[in-house]
């Protein structure tokens, strides 16, 4: 149970950083919508998970939030990836590739 949460946490950080790196600054709602859209199968992102992740990333200095107007004139907090965030994304991506490669290999060997 605990491992799953941790894995999810790490993965979520990676997903958010990746999304912000490709799409530019986004607010939390747009991020949710984007992630649901990208996912192949129905995937609902719990807000109770997304917000802590944003806080965490912002406190680590990997993303930075700023209040801006949306195209419809609404206030929203846009998160953009920072330079340390970009570096962290590279490292995390690397790590994820190695990890998933290992898991893939293990799963193949097993079958």
């Amino acid at each position, binding site marked *: 149970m605990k491992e799953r949460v941790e894995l999810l946490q790490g993965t979520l950080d990676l997903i958010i950083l990746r999304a912000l790196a490709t799409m530019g600054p986004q607010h939390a*709602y747009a991020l949710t919508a984007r992630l649901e859209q990208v996912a192949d199968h129905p995937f609902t992102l719990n807000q109770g998970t997304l*917000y*802590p992740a944003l806080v965490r990333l912002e*406190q680590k200095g990997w993303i930075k939030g700023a209040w801006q107007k949306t195209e419809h004139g*609404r206030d929203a907090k846009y998160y953009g990836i920072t330079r340390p965030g970009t570096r962290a994304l590279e490292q995390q991506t690397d790590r994820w590739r190695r990890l998933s490669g290992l898991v893939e290999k293990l799963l193949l060997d097993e079958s």
Partner: protein
Amino acid sequence: MSRLRRCALRFYNVLRPERAEVDADREVAAHLALLQDEFQSRGLTPEEARQAARRAFGGVTQVKQSHRDARSFVWLADAAQDLRHGLRILRRGPLFTLTAALSLAIGIGANTTIVTLATALFFRPPTGVTDSARVVDIGSNRGPGGFGPGSYPNYLDVRQRTTTLASAYAYSRFPQPMSLASTENGIRADRVFGTVVTTNYFTALGVAPVAGRLFDVSDSQQPGASPIAVLSHGFWTRRFNRDTSIVGRTLTLNGAPFTIVGVASAGFRGTGIRASDVWVPMGMAGTITTRGMAAFTDRAAAWLLRGGRLTPNVLIAQAAAEMEVIGQTLAREYPTENRDTTLRLLASSPAPGSNGPLVAFLTLLTLIVSLVLAVACANVAGVLLARATARRQEIAVRLTLGAGRGRVVRQLLTETLLLFAFGGTAGLWLAHGATSLLSSYLLASSFALDVPLVVDAHVLVFTTALTLVAALVSGLAPALQGSGADVATALKDNAQAPAHLRLRHLFLGAQVSLSLLLVVLAGLCGRALQRAGSVDPGFDPHGVELASIDLSGYTGATGPRFARELVDRVRRLPGVTDASVAAVLPGGFETRRQGLTVPGVSPPNGQRFFGVDWNIIEPDYFSTLRIPLLAGRDFRAGDYQGAPPVAIVSEGAAAQFWPGHPVQDAIGKYLVQPVFTPAGVAKGSLTLFVVGVAHEVKSTSVLDGLARACVYVPLQQAYTPSISVVARTSRGQRITNELQTLLTSMNANLPIVTAQTLEESLAFGLTPQRVVASIAGSLGLVGLLLAGLGIYGVTAYVVTRRTREIGIRMALGAQRAHVVRMILRQAMTPVAVGCALGLVLAAAGSRVLTAYLFGIPAIDPVVFCGVAALFLLIALSACSTPARRATRIQAMDALRYE
């Protein structure tokens, strides 16, 4: 780096939560607005869109909470919140907070004071010493457990044979009072305390001089060869105003000149518990003490305390083992002097290896102060429990709203801890005051104890730990009880809570029994003091002036002459009706005890000697103190050195020596007194002719509580240098100044060691009883008062809880008296049980006390019954008001109550 940054930000958000909170609210609101826009664009009405947005988003509160969890340390924020809440609660009940904190402060302060005292006496190495952990004390003992002094020859052997000690030093057991002569270079005559030390004393201890130099091994240890002295920093400051030019000047101590070579550093107070003003080298022992050359040569003369510094890399256990072997060897080699004598080695402290009355008295005080703290804790726990009960509804609401039980317990415990923190801080402050008071008192007392009492880090740790443990012990049960509220019943106001009451009654009973124990102990000490005041001591202590002087500078030939002339001149002082001199005064701590034999009579129980107290007096001692002579005569001028030795025996002594005879028969009988050299070696005996029988003197002090057999001998035939002038004045006026002037005119070098009245001296002998009585009494009364408040609280609570029931009973025709009985029964049961338990405890406690202190009656019916009645009376009056309120309950009001 990023982790550190996050951690710092989380701390920041604990301290300043407002901005982040506003930001999070705004972000969530924006998110909802965007969702609503989305739904509205799909064709929903604004209201439908708003609701749909809320549904899609999920729990707003939960998201905000998870936001908080992520951005700060919630547990820390909770703790801060608990602290704020606790402060608010405590401020809301200032009376409770004050009384509880005060009772805790008294309990914790008393414990801290005793621990400070015990640490200073037994566990703290001497101050001002380099690497004091490597310094050890060496003690001799005959039989198990002792830690006494040894002789110079034995010291030299230890010093020579040890390999585990880099250096071994020795010093005279207590600083001796010495007379400092006035000289033309501006030094006034004074009484100073001097210690004789080996010349390696300061180098072994690593003490630094602040002026001049200290002794070192180059100073000759040969008898009489090094007339030099080192001053203590305190004495140098007090007498010479820190004048560095004092080095090189001459002091005349007990008539012998000494050159001051230096001053020891400020922190160094010597290695014992009594303050020393000057140190002189071992070689001068023969000159400055009455021991003469025997000080150096007599292996049986045990007058030196010894210590040493461990060789590097040697463990204290190794040194102790070696010392034991050396002790055994010395006992074998010198079987006459060292028979059954062993050597022990311990880490250095002011009162090493002590197991005498000091330890017993401290143990007793420790027991009492622990009791006090227990009472305070029981009281606070009881009140906390009552408050937890009163707050059942608040707590139930918290639980209903989703607070975890752990969280509620944490909050209640925080309040308790806060309360104890106040109590502990105030207690430390109290202890600080008490220890400095105690320090100055000990220094000013006739013992001149110089014990550096400091509330140091060790004591601080002890107090903190004590406070925490006490807080947990008294806070945990109420907190668990409080948090265990059954939500459904607690929310209903009239719920009965039998478990609560049971625990509350338990604390109340404990509190009553412990307070009762304290008050009874105080009462017993009071009875002892009262007895001491009412008992006829056998002499008249009113209007007698005392002045103790030390004639160490005199010899066995000149001393008695001087004493005789002094008494004659004191008698001629205006206002003096009678005067004499005595070595021992009734009621003090000092006794001279020595055995004697009686020709033709064998001592009881197969002993070799009759054990008696001795006193050495000048003529007119009995008339000065108004002790009746029952038969025979007083000493007179004819009883001089060289005339047949005479003695006067006390009534009790006569009865003991010649049982079955009237006391008059003692006249003309003989006593045989064994005679020893100053070193304690037997050298023949002296036959004393009994010339008189004196009335019994009952002393009331701790040590010689009973009237003990006493033998008086004349000073002219048995000279001792340490004497007290006793003078009865016509109207009880003080004549200290006249005495000092007289002494100065006779010998400018002779100061008065202590000056007081006989009544003051007697009162001093009762100090332990007074201390126990005042500590136990004041705290017991505080406990009693707190118990009264507790009983009132419980009864009022019971009445409120049972309002409806009582109303119904009254409506159904119950008598008022019946209702009162019912309430009283419930409230008084724990009190009665507590009282009974307290009486049993007190009976056991008084046995312990009787063993320690003289004059304590074991079971004193007046005290026991009186205190129990007092407690019951206070308990009754405490619950009478709520009980009366119960009888005024109207049935209709009670039913409408909800």
